[in-house]
């Protein structure tokens, strides 16, 4: 069971309080009608499925209720960071620089 820091509560808590919500930074087009079928497929289905640091979303569903973003290494399952929804995508090299 993972330990996850909720950036809104600023507490590190057991995974059971959280729900995984898929890959992060996949924005829904502002005007969906204008995008191609391929674009829409990419939005709906195509995922990086990264082996290593993975940008992903979690929801503190049994807590503050907020969706937030995280970078987690899918090989070790360890979180590199978590950050609030809407905040910029953290730079991977900065994150892994210390760890590697």
């Amino acid at each position, binding site marked *: 069971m993972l330990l996850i820091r909720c950036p809104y509560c*600023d507490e590190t808590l057991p995974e059971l309080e959280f729900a995984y919500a898929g890959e992060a930074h996949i924005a829904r087009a502002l005007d969906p009608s204008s995008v191609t079928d391929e674009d829409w497929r990419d939005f709906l289905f195509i995922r990086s499925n990264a082996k290593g640091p993975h940008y992903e979303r979690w929801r503190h569903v049994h*807590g503050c209720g907020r969706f937030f973003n995280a970078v987690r290494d899918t090989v070790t399952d360890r979180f590199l960071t978590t950050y609030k929804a809407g905040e910029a995508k953290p730079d991977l090299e900065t994150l892994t620089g210390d760890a590697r």
Partner: protein
Amino acid sequence: MTIHPHDLTPGKIAESAACKVHMLDPVARFSLRAHEPERKAVADALELDLPWYVGDVAKTGETEVLNLGPDEWLIVAPEGQTDFASRTVDAPHALTDISDRELTFRITGPRASDLLTLGCPRDPDSIKPGQGRRTLFDSATVVLWRDGENDFRMDIWRSFAPHAVSLLALGCAELAAE
């Protein structure tokens, strides 16, 4: 032991040398939502103190306000003392009456904190006396108020209560037998 919802009435549910579980009388309960820029305006209009940190509780008279998230507060007041709900608030916000959504149980006794470890994955000691949190107990979302070192209140959705409470009752006996 199976507890049905209609078996749940205010009063003692379980008691042992280790801990006690009581169901409390109904209260008025509201969910208040507003974004941070409007927090002060909403607080002023409602004449309530809206704490800033998640988990903090503010008391205004007999009305308690618990911050459950960055834009969410739980307001609990004695029944009939809900004047704030009828005040005019110009700032964007949402106030929703949820008085009947949850039942409330008080958990006390020397091992009250241990009793919660039957179902709470988070460390109950991470909630300081005078604070509260929304968290998980067994499979139910609950709001856990810590009123004192060995004094907790648990708000739990009505239909989830029998399951959680029967586990608490079992735990009362189990802890006393240790």
